[in-house]
């Protein structure tokens, strides 16, 4: 079996539909307000809430599959090195054990998400899948990969699950709230694993730590989806500060993610403005 797969190589059955990032974000079933870039927090009283919630749940489901695949590949892609004498391509035995544990957790999250999707009235393949989440799990440096996956991707999962949990509470859906809370507990564990391994593996290599944190910033900005995840009231997914703190994030790191989200939002708005102007010029 080859090492280091690309997102294009992920195996799926015929129900799954690949979609690029823009198609996925601009799917009108995400909620008409979101499609119009007005976004808005996911609330049960929104007319488009059922579609938006189903789309988000489908996104969680495919995200969990990719998280499962990412953790699995980290079990396989790297060799175990002797403690204290690791090459850059090697990992400690205990890191692999953590990744295997994460595999089990993500497999359960897939099971939970597919059942919740049915519960909410959607089915596999109703929405497109973008494989960009797995991209973070393709980094050939295990420290950068762990930082991108366990701190950025799993950090996003904390924010999303907290949002869904709140939505379940507001919507009077105890099943949704119950399941999201359990998954949230696992994600806090996964992010903490990432924080702990980043600290342990770079304790004597500040340059590598700097590169890992830079990679995390890139991934965090990408995962802000142009302001979809942020701290503005109109952001559908909010930073779950309390749970991120449990997972090892300090205030400065959370403020940085909030700032990255604001930057990402401004950039998307600027791109939209330029596109509108170009269209107006072309049609004039």
């Amino acid at each position, binding site marked *: 079996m080859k090492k280091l*797969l690309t997102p294009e190589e992920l*195996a799926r059955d015929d129900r799954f539909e690949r979609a690029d990032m823009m198609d996925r974000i601009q799917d009108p079933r995400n909620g008409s307000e979101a499609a119009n870039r007005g976004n808005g927090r996911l609330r049960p009283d929104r007319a488009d809430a059922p579609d938006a919630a189903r789309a988000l749940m489908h996104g969680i489901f495919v995200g969990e599959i990719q998280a499962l695949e990412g953790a*699995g590949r*980290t*079990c*396989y892609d790297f060799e175990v090195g002797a403690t204290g004498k690791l090459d850059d391509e090697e990992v400690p035995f205990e890191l692999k054990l953590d990744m295997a544990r994460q595999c*089990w957790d993500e497999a359960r999250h*897939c099971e939970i998400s597919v059942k919740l999707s049915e519960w909410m009235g959607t089915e596999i393949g109703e929405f497109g899948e973008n494989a960009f989440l797995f991209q973070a799990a393709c980094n050939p440096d295990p420290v950068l990969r762990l930082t991108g996956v366990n701190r950025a991707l799993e950090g996003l999962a904390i924010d999303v699950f907290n949002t869904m949990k709140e939505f379940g509470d507001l919507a009077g859906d105890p099943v949704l709230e119950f399941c999201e809370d359990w998954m949230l507990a696992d994600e806090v564990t996964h992010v903490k694993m990432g924080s702990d391994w980043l600290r342990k593996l770079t304790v004597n290599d500040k340059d590598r730590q700097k590169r890992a944190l830079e990679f995390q910033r890139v991934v965090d900005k990408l995962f802000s989806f142009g302001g979809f995840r942020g701290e503005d009231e109109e952001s559908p997914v909010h930073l779950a500060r309390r749970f991120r703190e449990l997972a090892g994030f300090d205030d400065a790191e959370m403020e940085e993610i909030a700032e990255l989200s604001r930057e990402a939002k401004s950039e998307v708005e600027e791109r939209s403005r330029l596109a509108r102007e170009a269209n107006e010029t072309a049609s004039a």
Partner: protein
Amino acid sequence: MADSKKPRAPFAPWDRRELPGAFSVEETAARVGQYKWIEMKLFEALGGWVATVPELDIKMRLGTHCYHHAWHADLWHKRLPELREMNPERLTGPASPEVEAFMDAVAEPGEHDQTIEKLVGVYRVLIPHKVAAYTYHLNNTSTITDAPTIRSLKFALQDEMEDWRDGTLMLTSLIQSDEEVQRAADHQAKLEKLLVAAGGICGPGTIGDAYDLSGDPARLTVA
């Protein structure tokens, strides 16, 4: 209530554990190191395969089984220092190059259309042989001096049996034509031949020697 000062037998009538065992501390450490290596190679392959299997239920199941074998590897890893091996990496390895070749062949199928080969290697060949090796060890080690290994073997065996059943169900559902029956059988035969050449997953003596008429090996170690 009986008089609490009245002497009792140190081993109650229902407790028939005995001292003799077939394995010395060194032999046990060697086997445990081999178990750890096999469990590691297995959980790495299962984790790697998750992304290459299109069947959703199997993808999720492999993720679950991946952890079972990682946990077994950790049990063996932690047992090694208790067996006087303070550098667990030293004994973590295959019993022979032939065993290594077998495990490489188990992990080899990587294409999307090779789910049958992946599952056959694990659930028709490797796990049955692990059950055999663990059971042999369980039934031959000292039930008193080596109780910690016995406890780990029992935990591992419980997982192995349940995973074996899961794997059999998955394979049964996948194999639907004569051609697929043959594919599964061919791959199983290829791997079984490698194991025969290796003498078992721990090399010759993995499950003792059924043709040895000299007596009970467990009795022989206590002169």
